């Protein structure tokens, strides 16, 4: 047994390129998957911990104002002891046009600001607890003073602490911002008294309750009467849903790519290991002839696969979480703000390791077993795989074509038909490379082209402003010149049968600032009976024209709507109707968006009812910025893909070469020149590359499509876009690697030891 161990290590030395290939493939697969998994799983775990440390509430109740009597009713009549009341106003920093959302809490029972530095939050203090990102961007520290204005009132605050608010982990400041603007928008905690200094008599409007109490809709209506708006439970909270989706997206991205990685690696490793064993057939035969037990021989070769894949996996497990998280987290932190992002291994990585190790070990044992089944004499005699019978293939029957082919090509074709698995593996290697690279390059391109569509084809306004909602909007904004369109977009849910989706409901004046197009890309003019649904949502809910869906808008109401058309608009995914239809089905039209064209920016910004204004270009820019966060992930994947492609193509070509080295040596002895043999090698490679390339392009297009569907958030549809550049890059990498490998191998032809290669029969 000891000798067998020693032999294993000697063999590792001999076949080191092969083993190195297997090593790298396990390493990359595990590093990528493991490295991404610690990030998304770490996000889940960290958020859970953060929720606990923040005493996150279980029920949120929204009202138009809570009086002392209401509080008494809740506390004495209902006997609820633990309640956190809160209210918020939007304050302004005096000169700088920066905004701070000020929140006052009655206590921090169910909304504990997470302290970064300074003092602990005190609901009675006159100080202010400022959001960390805003503080960082504006270089503010505890002890500094802030002058805040609200309407006509001003107040100076001393910064007591720097904090984070879990409920505002995706805080941007405006619904028009898809990425945070921490420089200009911040949030802060102050006391109720301070808040009332700025906004006299402004009441508490929100209630947070814990696990123990749970107030029903009817109870809330009876307590607050018509001041009651709506309530939300933990599972309804948008930020939790979103953070879950972020982690989900990262998970899906890594799983889909890793799946291809692992599949390719597994296939390559399988053929690598089995070929390696086949090359050892003489030794296996000898061992059997010498009477070594079959079990021992199998164990010996099983060790090959086991050792190398275990080492690769461990290296991947150590390296992945070192390299990937810093890049990934930095990108993700541009949208989400957390006090910490712990890295936690997900158990699935161990499962994948087990699978890879199993494949390697199994490939070795199975092939050893296959050889061992034969009698020693037969194993020893059959040295050049002569047992693989050559049959005349289909092409060969067409003599008219076949007889015109050069001998080199005939040789290649027959060899491939004799070694179908090897040939197929070569094709899969090229195909896999194309898929990984095209998808890797295509994802960001697709997202950006979808963004382009949304902000150029779909939108026609110059400015878009978030405005305070009111019914007499016409009058309020009459100073603003140019073309105007008022829209109302509200979050809500759509229900069809047992499926529910969070959607955006848009009520539009439809004056041409946003174009709605049907699936043939023709413009739709909304009429008062129209209810449009976006294509992706329709597919998700299984809805067609004529179907009825139930639409719920938080704090406003619900209605069953009959879908009249499907629109190809990409974002936001939801339901679109005219303002009249909205008024008929839900409530008064009180818009929250003003889209304008040809207006003066000054007039817009001067208007007190305008909360925030941005341009269409700016929106596009932001959306592209967001796409870049996906791009960063893609760069990691592309890089890993390139390495993997090199390893796979090299390993497979090398195997081919080893298998045919004796034939090449024969040719050398016959007097063939190096470059003549190289062209035979090239022949072989070209055939594989061409087939792999063609099939690869189709597979890649399909993969990209599926990938985008799975990875996109529900709120937007990403349309796959395969551009020539990505195609050219992927092609040149794959073809380049294949050719380089041919040249690398052909340089070995010169070094073939002509004497030695015939001497050994193995």
């Amino acid at each position, binding site marked *: 047994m000891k000798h067998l161990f020693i032999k294993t290590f000697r063999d590792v030395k001999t076949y080191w390129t092969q083993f190195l290939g297997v090593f790298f493939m396990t390493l990359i697969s595990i590093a990528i998957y493991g490295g991404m998994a610690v990030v998304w799983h770490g996000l889940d775990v960290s958020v859970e911990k953060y929720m606990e440390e923040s005493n996150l509430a279980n029920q949120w109740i929204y009202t138009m104002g809570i009086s002392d009597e209401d509080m008494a009713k809740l506390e004495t009549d209902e006997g609820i002891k633990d309640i956190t009341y809160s209210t918020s106003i939007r304050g302004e920093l005096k000169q700088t046009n920066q905004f701070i959302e000020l929140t006052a809490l009655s206590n921090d029972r169910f909304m504990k600001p997470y302290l970064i530095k300074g003092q602990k939050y005190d609901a009675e203090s006159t100080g202010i607890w400022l959001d960390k990102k805003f503080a960082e961007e504006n270089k503010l520290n505890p002890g500094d003073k802030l002058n805040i204005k609200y309407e006509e009132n001003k107040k100076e605050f001393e910064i007591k602490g720097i904090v984070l608010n879990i409920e505002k982990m995706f805080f941007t400041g405006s619904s028009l911002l898809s990425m945070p603007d921490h420089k200009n928008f911040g949030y802060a905690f102050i006391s109720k008294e301070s808040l009332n200094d700025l906004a006299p008599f402004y009441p508490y409007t929100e209630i947070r309750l814990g696990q123990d109490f749970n107030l029903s809709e009817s109870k809330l209506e009876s307590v607050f009467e018509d001041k009651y708006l709506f309530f939300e439970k933990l599972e309804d909270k948008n930020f939790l849903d979103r953070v879950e989706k972020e982690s989900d997206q990262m998970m899906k991205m890594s799983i889909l790519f890793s799946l291809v990685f692992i599949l390719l690696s597994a296939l390559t490793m399988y053929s690598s290991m089995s070929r390696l064993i086949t090359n050892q057939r003489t030794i296996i035969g000898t061992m059997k002839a010498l009477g070594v037990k079959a079990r021992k021989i199998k164990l010996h070769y099983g060790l090959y696969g086991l050792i190398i894949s275990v080492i690769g996996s461990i290296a991947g497990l150590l390296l992945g979480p070192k390299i990937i998280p810093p890049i990934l987290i930095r990108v993700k932190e541009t949208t989400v703000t957390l006090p910490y992002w712990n890295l936690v291994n997900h158990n699935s990585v161990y499962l994948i390791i087990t699978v890879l190790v199993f494949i390697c070990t199994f490939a070795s044992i199975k092939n050893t077993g296959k050889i061992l089944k034969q009698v020693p004499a037969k194993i020893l005699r059959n040295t050049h795989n002569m047992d693989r019978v050559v049959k005349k293939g289909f092409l060969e029957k067409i003599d008219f074509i076949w007889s015109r082919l050069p001998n080199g090509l*005939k040789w290649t074709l027959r060899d491939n038909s*004799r070694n179908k698995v090897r040939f197929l593996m070569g094709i899969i290697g090229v195909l896999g490379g194309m898929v990984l690279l095209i998808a890797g390059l295509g994802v960001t391109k697709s997202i950006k082209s979808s963004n382009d569509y949304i902000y150029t084809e779909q939108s026609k306004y110059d400015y878009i402003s978030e405005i305070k909602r009111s019914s007499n909007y016409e009058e309020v904004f009459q100073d603003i010149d140019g073309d105007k369109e008022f829209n109302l977009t509200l979050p809500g849910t759509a229900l069809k049968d047992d499926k529910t989706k969070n959607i955006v409901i848009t009520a539009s004046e439809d004056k041409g600032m946003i174009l709605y197009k049907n699936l043939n890309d023709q413009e739709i003019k909304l009429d008062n009976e129209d209810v449009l649904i976006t294509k992706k949502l329709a597919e998700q809910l299984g809805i067609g024209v004529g179907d009825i869906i139930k639409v719920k808008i938080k704090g406003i109401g619900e209605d069953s709507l009959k879908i009249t058309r499907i629109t190809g608009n990409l974002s936001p995914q939801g339901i679109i109707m005219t303002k009249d239809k909205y008024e008929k089905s839900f409530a008064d039209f009180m818009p929250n968006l003003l889209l304008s064209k040809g207006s003066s920016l000054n007039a817009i910004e001067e208007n007190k009812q305008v909360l925030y204004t941005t341009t269409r270009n700016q929106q596009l820019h932001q959306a592209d910025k967001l796409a870049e966060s996906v791009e960063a992930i893609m760069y990691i994947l592309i890089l890993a893909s390139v390495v993997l492609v090199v390893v796979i193509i090299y390993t497979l070509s090398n195997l081919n070469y080893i298998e045919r080295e004796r*034939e090449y040596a024969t040719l050398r002895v016959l*007097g063939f*020149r190096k470059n003549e043999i190289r062209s035979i090698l090239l022949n072989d490679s070209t055939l594989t590359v061409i087939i792999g390339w063609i099939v690869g392009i189709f597979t890649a297009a399909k993969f990209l499509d599926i990938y985008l569907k799975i990875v996109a958030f529900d709120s937007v549809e990403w349309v796959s876009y395969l551009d020539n550049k990505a195609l050219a890059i992927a092609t040149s990498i794959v073809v380049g690697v294949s050719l380089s490998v041919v040249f690398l191998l052909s340089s070995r032809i010169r070094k073939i030891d002509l*004497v030695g290669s015939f001497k050994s029969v193995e």
Partner: protein
Amino acid sequence: MIKLNEVSKIYKSGTNEIKALDKVCLTIEKGEFAIVLGPSGSGKSTMLNLIGGMDTVSEGKLEIDGEDITKKSAAEMENYRRDMIGFVFQFYNLIPSLTVRENVDIVTSLTKNHLNVDEILDSVGLKERKSLFPFNLSGGELQRLSIARAVVKKPKILLCDEPTGALDTQTGIRILRLLNDIARENDITLIIVTHNSNLKDIGDTVIQLKDGKVENIEKNTSPIEIEQVEW
């Protein structure tokens, strides 16, 4: 004419030195049939490989038609093998994915001045086997194919390392006969390596090697017919 002048081949492995050939001097005339004999490990294959340009000489001069091939570059050696040498292996080394005919045909691309593929296949008795694959042939047929492949490009020197080593007596005799006939017909210098000393009487020159040295060289003025050899 092949002339070895104090040719040595030394294999170094670490501090060990193995003298596979030790100052070998000998001459084989053009068109001769030479038999190289000797016990295992005596350097027979080594000598053949040196003549065939498959390996490099460590010391000494190896002249072929008056030209010292030890001075040739790698590319010149390629041409040398291509134009001068035909090689027949003990284990055939045919290309399994090519048919009998293709195995020979592939060599014809090396030179314009080659024999007709079908004729040579007919003459080695593989007329009916042309479209089969090596896998389907018997050992003797494989060796005949291997000979056809070696001679089709009309080499000046035909080198055979144990060409009958894997064959039975009857088949062995037929192979030797074939080699001899073909060499005579085409004016090829034929060198056959064997450890079967019964064969010594069939060659024009018989070279005995031992421990890398030439033990004896005999010119055989009246070689016997191959069929008369006692095995």
